[in-house]
């Protein structure tokens, strides 16, 4: 099935909730955050947690390699045709915020080739604290930071920490080793985020990605309602 052959209208332009054939498109959730905070590991864990109940796909935005896409392939979290890599020309935030065309193509092509899909995870390349996703690309965004990046990050704020629909503070298991104060991070995050949710997680133990997966299920229920 390809656009233009079976549909009357030309391809969608931006964040239209309906595909050209009138069906509802997949929910798109963006994951952003600094380098090394655990975005790809969170995506992999989400795929494992959700793939039995949902039809899902992933778009990665590697800055200069296909490492993130290849990690997901190696871990076999999804079949290869459900993982697509976008090249970002040395500017990962541009590709998810200022000029989203390549990412829009990637999500639409995934829906065309392996759809119908319930959920597409769009992972940003590791970037800085100001990087956020355009509303033209994703319906909700998760910002992933980690305890080892400094426990003052929630206090410093910035668009990712303050406005993301979900803030994930990752690698809580490392807190004792790097001297990070989780209670302080939690209080600072609450203060910055005006009621938006925060999840503290460790993918190496406890409930792993369960809280984030539950949040995604909630967004999906709202999207399909």
């Amino acid at each position, binding site marked *: 099935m390809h656009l233009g052959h079976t549909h009357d209208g030309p391809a969608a332009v931006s964040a239209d909730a309906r595909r050209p054939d009138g069906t509802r498109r997949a929910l798109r959730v963006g994951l952003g955050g600094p380098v090394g905070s655990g975005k790809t590991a969170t995506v992999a864990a989400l795929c494992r947690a959700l793939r039995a109940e949902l039809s899902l796909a992933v778009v990665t935005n590697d800055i200069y*390699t*296909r490492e993130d896409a290849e990690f997901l392939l190696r871990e076999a979290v999804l079949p290869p045709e459900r993982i697509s890599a976008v*090249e970002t020309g*040395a*500017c990962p935030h541009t590709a998810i915020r200022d*000029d989203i065309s390549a990412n829009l193509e990637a999500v639409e092509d995934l829906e065309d080739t392996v759809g119908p899909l319930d959920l597409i995870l769009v992972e940003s390349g590791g970037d800085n604290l100001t990087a956020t996703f355009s509303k033209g690309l994703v319906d909700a965004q998760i910002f992933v930071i980690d305890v080892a990046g400094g426990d003052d990050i929630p206090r410093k704020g910035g668009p990712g920490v303050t406005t993301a629909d979900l803030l994930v503070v990752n690698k809580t298991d490392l807190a004792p080793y790097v001297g990070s104060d989780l209670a302080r991070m939690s209080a600072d995050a609450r203060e910055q985020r005006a009621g938006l949710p925060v999840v503290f997680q460790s993918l190496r133990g406890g409930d792993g990605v369960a809280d984030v997966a539950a949040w995604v299920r909630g967004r999906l229920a709202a999207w399909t309602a």
Partner: protein
Amino acid sequence: MSRAALLVLADGRFPAGGHAHSGGAEAAVKAGRITDAATLEEFCRGRLHTAGLVAGALAAAAALGADPGELDAAADARTPSPALRTAARRLGRQLLRAARSTWPSSELDALAREFPKGAHQPVVLGLAARAAGLGPEDAAHCAAYESVSGPATATVRLLSLDPFDATGALARLAPELDRVADRAVAAARRVRAEGADALPAASGPLLEVGAEWHAAWPVRLFAS
């Protein structure tokens, strides 16, 4: 005709995907052909008179209302490198999305139906100019300018080149760019009577070879 519409279309921040492409500069930097502002200027000069001229003529012809399908085939014939054809179509698809949203037009919708996976970028650029109320001269200038502005901004990132030096190189190329655009428009005006064969077919072999080399790298900053 609106001069301001030309500024919108030609703006380097127009969200049409160009930021992820280096116009061959990444391969030329790696090969040691671009090392500083002077060699960047020479690289851009070569690209302007080859790929830039062809792109300008295709864009001007599209702006004049020539058949996009015929122009797309002409662009294919003038682009030996499969990697460059893929990149041109990808950029064309991205530009088409941005243009349809910015200047809604039945011609752009028709192009999206005919080429769901993208037509060559200069063809889309010409039709976008047409939809914006611009003429063939504007379209040719846009295409010719993009042929040099892309490599210049990419080289600033690749070599940490002084951005003032890169911009100075573009400014020095401006008079030549005007002449290339004039030639492009003159050729485009012949398409109605003579068909797409009237379009120039200049090419830079190293750009084509470099694009194939670049496409095979496992690690790179730019998509092309």
